[in-house]
């Protein structure tokens, strides 16, 4: 923040409302940009293969995107605070297996309790991450890189060569991800509500705003008396808990759960978050953007299958998009800074 590019200007010169509008516009562009890409992409795909927009395919995409959007919600909360959680894939895997077992006929735990168990498992992992980052003062990249390994290792140790298969669940478990209202999966609706809630929290509650403040300038946040440890800890705990829930949904969606569930999801989630316009170094971005980012990536994924493009292209496209997103993000913010600078220069002159 000390690197200010604008020279001194007389105070109270013409109100800089125009710069606010500019800033608003740019940030709107950031989110609308993703939406626009999404729309164009869907339109092009649908014009080639009209069945892309069939109700079943939309349902498929929505349900798959739901899990990623949920993970992206948790990841966004962490990334906004200038941290990163690379352990979400492993947490999802562990939660998926354990809750799948609980939802099997042999245990027959009622559905709400299964979800509670998923939250609990995820919360535990998130708390461990959060404690090591806040009290241990180890950079979150390193902590969650380590827990990525460790939680997966624990998962493999617990699961061994076992697996849970669809036949073993009580029926209502598998229908979680299949029920629809007016052609839209229940799951997508619920998750959309959850994400909207998350967005509302981040926008209108002190604790939410403080996460942005921490990510925007940690030193200033400390001087402002923001309980940084507690906030960052909460972010990790939330991210863990959300990954735990995503694990339950994963089990319900795909049925077959072994020790590899959710492997390398962390990179896709980070990709969705970054594509969704969340600054990787914290301070700005929205969960809605991240959720749209997740939807976009999932749509691209699905379009490749539907168009019959070799799935071999899938990963390269995802990687390319991720890089494109951060490059664009960087260019936009450079432009914004430069234009704010020129504006104040013009006023000052």
């Amino acid at each position, binding site marked *: *923040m*000390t690197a*200010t*590019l*604008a*020279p*001194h*200007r*007389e*105070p*109270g*010169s013409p*109100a*800089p*409302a125009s*710069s*606010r509008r500019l*800033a608003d516009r740019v940030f709107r562009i950031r989110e609308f940009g993703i939406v626009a890409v999404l729309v164009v992409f869907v339109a092009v795909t649908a014009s080639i293969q009209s069945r892309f927009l069939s109700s079943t395919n939309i349902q498929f995409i929505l349900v798959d995107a739901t899990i990623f959007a949920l993970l992206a919600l948790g990841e966004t909360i962490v990334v906004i605070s200038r941290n990163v959680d690379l352990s979400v894939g492993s947490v999802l895997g562990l939660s998926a297996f354990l809750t799948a077992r609980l939802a099997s006929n042999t245990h027959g735990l009622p559905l709400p309790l299964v979800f509670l168990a998923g939250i609990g498992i995820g919360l535990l992992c998130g708390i461990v991450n959060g404690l090591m980052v806040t009290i241990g003062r180890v950079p979150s990249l390193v902590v969650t890189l380590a827990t990525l390994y460790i939680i997966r290792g624990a998962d493999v140790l617990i699961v061994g060569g076992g697996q849970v298969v669809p036949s073993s669940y009580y029926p209502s478990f598998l229908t979680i991800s299949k029920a629809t209202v007016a052609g839209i999966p229940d799951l997508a609706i619920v998750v959309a509500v959850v994400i909207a809630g998350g967005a509302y929290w981040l926008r*209108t*509650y*002190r604790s939410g*705003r*403080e996460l*942005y*403040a921490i*990510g*925007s*300038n940690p*030193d*200033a*946040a*400390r*001087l*402002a*008396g*923001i*309980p940084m440890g507690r906030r960052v800890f909460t972010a990790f705990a939330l991210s863990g808990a959300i990954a735990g829930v995503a694990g339950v949904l994963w089990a319900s969606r795909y049925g077959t759960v072994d020790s590899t569930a959710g492997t390398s999801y962390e990179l896709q989630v980070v990709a969705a978050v970054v594509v969704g316009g969340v*600054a990787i170094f914290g*301070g*700005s971005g929205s969960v809605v953007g991240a959720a749209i980012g997740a939807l976009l990536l999932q749509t691209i994924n699905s379009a490749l299958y539907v168009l019959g493009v070799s799935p071999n292209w899938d990963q390269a496209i995802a990687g390319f998009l991720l890089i494109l997103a951060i490059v664009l993000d960087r260019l936009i913010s450079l432009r*914004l*800074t*430069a234009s*704010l*600078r*020129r*504006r*104040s*220069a013009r006023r*000052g*002159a």
Partner: protein
Amino acid sequence: MGPGEEDGHRSPGADAGADAGEPGSPAEPAPDSAAPAPVSRSAPAGTSPPEPAGTSPAAPVDTPSMDSPGTPPAPAAPVNTTSPDSPNTPDSPNTPDSTATADAGTDAGAPVVLSLEHVSKSFGAVRAVIDGSIELRAGEAHALVGENGAGKSTMVKILAGVHQPDSGTLLVNGQPTELHGPAGAIGAGIAIIYQEPTLFPDLSVAENIFMGRQPLRRGRRIDGREMTTEADALFARLGVRIDPGRIARGLSIADQQVVEIAKALSLNARVIVMDEPTAALSAVEVARLFDVIAALRADGAAVLFISHRLEEVFEICQRVTVMRDGRHVLTSPLAGLTTGDLVRAMVGRDMPERVAGERGAPGAVQLTAQRLTREGVFTDVSFEVRAGEIVALAGLVGAGRSEVARAIFGIDRYDAGTVTAGGRQLRKGSPTAAMTAGIGFVPEDRRQQGLVMEMSIQQNVALASLATLRKAGIIRASAERSFAADWAVRLSVKYGRLTDPVSMLSGGNQQKVVLAKWLGRRPSILIVDEPTRGIDVGTKADVHNLLDRLAGEGIAVLMISSELPEVLRLADRILVMREGRLAAEFTQAEASEESIMAAATGQLEAQER
């Protein structure tokens, strides 16, 4: 504001504060005019004389009042004489009313709201504060002065709750208090305006002000509308117009500082610590700030004012505490003191006068900047520096001086213009090209830009000369050691071992290491940006002598300094920058503090008109 027990003292002031808080009350629409109100830092002589004449003629300079807080040396002035409307007067410092306001603060009967007693704080081996004491009374503006490194910033951080003192006590309203973190300080009613703005670039201005304390509505939700309204009110009180809804990124330094001040005001704190709040402000904004300080005092708040500009201290403060080398030196009413007294107390002896002898006539042009422009930063800057002369770039902070230097050295790119050094036009944005052309650059921020703090003294000295210290691509350890030792001796750096981390050195010796790093390259052009900022007096004289000698040896020196005495003492020519443009040029003979300040603040043009 403060709790009720101080009502007796507060009542008149409270009215004044209420008046000052009225959005409409800043009487003149001065901020918009190019020519500011005739408030001037350049004429401290105009303001300080009335004060000794006013009330307290006999305050003994060397009486540290901390030792006897019950028997203050200053005679009491009745609070009631405070004119309720005085803070509203835009030109207050020059009016009799404001003198009365200033006198009111010397009221020894006012309760002590906060005191630090005999605190100490060490960071590893470094003893930042050895024995620090401050006492703040309700309704006073209290100056804390001392050289850089005297321990002022550490005292501020202790008050901010950032550091916990190793020993000593903090009393808030007479109660021993421990501050656990910045939140604790805020909770105790202490607000800090930091020297460097600490804003959240991604958040809106309003959020920056109210972070952690946003106004709430039902369900503990943030009331955005209320927040904007309150922010607008604060800015009105400060007489500036900043859109509370815009993001903080891109604000000018002055606006950032204004937001910081608004933040502190919004806390309704009883103690407000201002660490160099005026460094980036223009004269108009400074005047406005002083009005605010007066209003705060009238409300019964205590203001701790830290500034290197002693004339400001005399203008706004009633009492002063001087620190030197981490120790409390004196606390005294300002009335009756002179600038010389304060300086003596700060440095412990008289300031040395210019030692430089006459230099010969300057030689050939070494460095030329031609129509140098970086959009929004500086415009159309042209000048030349000749061999054997020292050219100073003067101006306010944020006028674009350092930015020009950075552009010349290739740290930043520029949009138009050329730089020629040693007869060759330099490639844009390439420090390597600048160095090859013989330029050395001692940057503004020693710790952040000048030194690699984890590296040893030796490695820092050698860092810019590695290419000459290698044989077959390998750095020869012996050559590096003797190179560093040679230059350390030449600049009389005081060190233990050359392999000690440079962070162990004092500020002055660190600066010498930076200088050694560049002199080791035998530059023909040396750019020094604030070469004596934050270093002790002895080393300061060393640096001055060195620069003088270098110019005598035929090096072209471009110096940026905010210390006018330094500029006047050393420079052959003085270029004044204002808002990114060259505003005036003086020869040493023409220049005076007044003329430079006038050019720097734009009053020169106003007068010419």
